[in-house]
């Protein structure tokens, strides 16, 4: 049996009291596996940072418990927990050199100075910053400070590394480069990473599993592909990528699939999870990603539509198409093949939704 790196059991966190009480987390249950790259993804105020701070020990839960490799963390101060944090603004100690910053955790643990020097050297090498040991933090660029913050948190060899939006202060190019580096670092060190972000691309590209959070609750916990392909509810579908939400009626079932009607259009949808309770004739909510829709010649699709708008963004072309029944759909077409003439606004086209590309939502 493998133990989980972190188990969160029924955790509630409320700030303030009485009429001013704000619920930050509500009955959170989740398990993070050893050596996993786990991401807490959600908009600001969803409780993801609060959960991270509870694990680090900066805050205490009002209810529930958190276990680290099977051991209770309750009552342990942050300095007694074998987890380290990479802070959003790096929080490097400005009065210490880079080496002193990286060695700080080991020094506080009482490691002898020869061993500290060795480890600091290793860490500088790990983040490819060997020649910067004697500098001060303010002599480094944002990206370099970011790496030192990582090295400092990894130096004491924590059982779990917590990362609180570590890339939010970096520019886009650097952020993308850091994704690869961080993923690589996680594989090399074999340490469990808990990563907090509001950036879905960041979450998708690095994570083994993602917990999508909103309003203090976990909305869905799955691998990135599952989150994108099989969103469970409207929030997840909307938050991750672009989506068309379609109101439909379940007409009948066919094998695994659900045959639904949206106006004049028939859609063959995949059931989401736990949809055995659905009955024929029930109103349901479908989600379809814009790139799954296909534009055809008029009359050849499942439904005819008028192109309202066409937007060229280089890699793709976005269309907004109005179907005959007041239904407006977003379509995304990859710019991969030469088209004689892409549909322009005002054109009449056919639209089809390939079987199984629509998924039924829970709400």
């Amino acid at each position, binding site marked *: 049996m493998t133990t989980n790196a972190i188990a969160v059991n029924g955790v509630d966190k409320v700030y303030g009291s009485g009429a001013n009480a704000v619920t930050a987390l509500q009955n959170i249950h989740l398990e993070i596996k050893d050596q996993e790259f786990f991401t807490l993804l959600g908009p600001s105020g969803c409780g993801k940072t609060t959960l991270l701070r509870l694990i680090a020990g900066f805050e205490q839960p009002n209810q529930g418990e958190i276990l680290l490799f099977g051991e209770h963390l309750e009552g342990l101060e942050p300095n007694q927990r074998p*987890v380290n944090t990479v*802070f959003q603004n790096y929080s490097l*100690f400005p009065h210490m050199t880079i080496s002193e910053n990286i060695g700080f955790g080991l020094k506080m*643990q009482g490691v002898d100075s020869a061993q500290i020097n060795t480890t600091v050297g290793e860490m500088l090498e790990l983040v490819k910053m060997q020649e910067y040991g004697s500098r*001060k933090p*303010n002599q480094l660029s944002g990206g370099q400070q970011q790496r030192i913050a990582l090295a*400092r948190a990894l130096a004491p060899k924590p059982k779990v590394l917590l990362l609180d939006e570590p890339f939010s202060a970096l520019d886009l190019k650097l952020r993308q480069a850091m994704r690869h580096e961080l993923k690589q670092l996680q594989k090399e060190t074999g340490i469990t990473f808990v990563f907090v972000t509001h950036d879905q691309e960041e979450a998708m590209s690095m994570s083994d599993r993602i917990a999508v959070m909103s309003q203090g609750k976990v909305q869905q916990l799955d691998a990135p592909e599952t989150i994108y392909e099989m969103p469970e509810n409207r929030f997840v579908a909307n938050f991750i990528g672009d989506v068309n939400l379609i109101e439909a009626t379940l007409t009948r079932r066919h094998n695994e699939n659900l045959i639904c009607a949206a106006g004049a259009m028939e859609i063959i949808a995949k059931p989401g999870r736990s949809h055995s309770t659905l009955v024929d004739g029930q109103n349901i909510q479908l989600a379809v990603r814009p790139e799954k829709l296909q534009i055809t010649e008029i009359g050849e699709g499942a439904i005819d539509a008028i192109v309202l708008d066409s937007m060229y963004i280089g890699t793709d072309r976005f269309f907004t198409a109005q179907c005959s029944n007041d239904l407006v759909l977003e379509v995304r077409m990859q710019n991969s093949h030469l088209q004689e003439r892409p549909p322009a606004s005002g054109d009449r086209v056919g639209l089809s939704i390939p079987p199984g590309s629509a998924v039924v939502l829970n709400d």
Partner: protein
Amino acid sequence: MAKSMNTPKKTRNPINWLKAWSHLFFLYLYAPIAVLIIYSFNDNRIAQVWTEFSTKWYVKAFTNEDIQRAIVNSLKVAFVATIVSTLFATMAALVLFRPKFRGQVISNAIISLPLLVPEIATAVATLSFFAAIKFPLGLTSIIIAHIVFCIPFAFMPIRARLAGMDQTLQEAGKDLYANEWQVFYYVTLPMLKPGIIAGAILAFIISVDDFIISLMVAGAGATTLPLYIYSMIRLGVSPEINAVSTVLFCISVSAIAAYWLISRQTEDKTHVH
């Protein structure tokens, strides 16, 4: 046509007026001090009539045992008052900056209040207090009084420094296995140092310079430099007074200069952008 549009009329530029005014202002501020210093090097025993350059008044002042004693007294008072008041101010700032507690706002106000109370009122109050508890007046009473009024001056820069400090640094310290005391010693204190030094220097200058409170609570034989200068001037203005005042001025200026040098050194070390 184009010329009249593109050439600014220099004389009308309000910035130039401001510049002229600021020069006048500096003259107004520093001319008296310049005169004081220049005439301290005047050979003539009538202070206002220039004859030739001489340092004899400095020699005279420094060989005057009363002046020597006054300088030593002033420095003794200032050193003790600076150290004790800075210590109190640092502790107060640390407590007042902790997470919110009952009476935090009031406590902040109470610490800073002495800055607003008229000094003469504080002086009379201090004297009455010493009289009431029958505390003997002397150097000790001056030191105690100075400690009290130096605290808010030392407190201000320390609090400002604390307020500008990134609170997550303490969290980072705790996260990296430092206990509360280690966080204070290795993180908070070094970062607070420029504020503490600034507070101490401010307290030192205020103490060396104080006249009213010192006048009230000084006992016999406990004459500080400002008190001595005042007693001299009652016997007539001599260039010796100019010399002694210049010395006092230099003590203050060197304290401020020391602060500048220290803060310039620490500034670039302690700011992360």
